[in-house]
């Protein structure tokens, strides 16, 4: 089946089997390996991308379901060579160790700050509760997202 998916603002047209999962479309067809792939059972959340701005687990979405829709992956966060605030936060606050969960965490964090610009710790923990950090670095992930929220709050003033 021929599909066109807009990924990070670029349309990509491919012939795919209906059973191809979005995560493999991104990684294998488009070479966007920033989206990781772990449990394959919609538990760990490392495959999280944004579909029309909403975080989804791409191991449980068919690529054909994204036809005509917008996907944002971690590769799409940086703008004109500048990292997004959430990426900077993870750098500043040591929000990653091995980095396996990080792309998914960043996309969830981005969506959270787009909808709740100044989240408290509880809201952050709730937002990332569908994602596992195998390095158990949750404290620093929360701090990183708080840092990004503060930085964006500052920039808005």
């Amino acid at each position, binding site marked *: *089946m021929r599909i066109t998916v807009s990924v990070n603002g670029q349309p990509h047209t491919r012939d795919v*089997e*209906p*059973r*191809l*999962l979005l995560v*493999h479309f991104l990684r294998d067809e488009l070479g966007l390996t920033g989206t990781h792939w772990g449990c*394959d*059972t*919609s*538990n760990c*959340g490392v495959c*999280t991308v944004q*579909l029309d701005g*909403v*975080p*989804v*687990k791409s191991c*449980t*979405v*068919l690529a*054909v*379901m994204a*036809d005509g829709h917008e996907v944002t992956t971690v590769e799409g966060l940086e703008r004109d060579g500048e990292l997004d605030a959430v990426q900077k936060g993870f750098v500043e606050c040591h929000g990653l160790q091995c980095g396996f969960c990080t792309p998914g965490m960043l996309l*969830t964090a981005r969506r959270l700050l787009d909808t709740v610009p100044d989240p408290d710790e509880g809201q952050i923990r*709730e*937002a990332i*509760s*569908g*994602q596992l950090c195998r390095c158990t670095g949750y404290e620093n992930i929360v701090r990183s997202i708080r840092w990004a929220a503060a930085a964006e709050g500052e920039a808005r003033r």
Partner: protein
Amino acid sequence: MQVPAKFAYERADSVPHALELLERYGPEARVVAGGHSLIPMMKLRLAQPEALIDINGLTELGRLAVEDDELVIGALVRHAELLASTIATDLFPIFRDAERVIADPIVRNRGTIGGSLCQADPSEDLSAVFSALRATAVIQGRNGTRTVPIRDFHQGPYETAVEPDELLVRLRVPISSGTGSAYVKVERRVGDWPVAAAGAVLRVEDGVIAQAGVGLTAVGAEHFCAPEAETYLAGRPPSPEAFAAAGRIAAEHCEPHTDQRGPADYKRHLAAELTRRALAAAAERI
């Protein structure tokens, strides 16, 4: 790497089109919306449909609104949308209680109300919620729509009243004043299926319980409800003693099984205790 077996994929552009596709592909076709129950089952070959009919484009099924004296919830409403809808959660706080503990926020962004109900997993949360609320399911076929009380909707594990050539289109929940509702769940870890869970809906008139709804999941309660406990409560003043007795009755009439989530006697204990707690919480909210 887990990949589903091959299937044909069709995208429905209207409800009649979806019904036409269901008829064309026959009983081996499955409807897919969020896909968060079906796709994992397809990866494991627990489900192997020959065709998937994608209904994600049917925006007419995504409505969530009050119509007359009912809350109408389209089958395609996502869990996250139900949780975010203050119309729904103010009227029926049981939705807020339940949706906060169904899977996780990212799964809730995608999974749908209709999908959860049609999956009819014996541990599914919303089945107990809608059962407690005495909702009505609206099912559409080629010859029009029909309504089914939710307690007749579930006909067994993974079995519903929806025929292979039909589509669940919406749920209708009766609104009445003097009502409180709550849902209480015990899970092993955040986002898991329940070990056991109970929902309660209480309508109190002139100091006595005019109608009680008790929903139970994961404990082998037929149709996800506890009619004996409801009958016991009707006509009594709400009290901790009555709620505890109703819990004991509910537990007596369920049929929990020992599995990886816990032994049967523990689940039976939970059925009683969670029913009691849900009733008490519902009473507080009237």
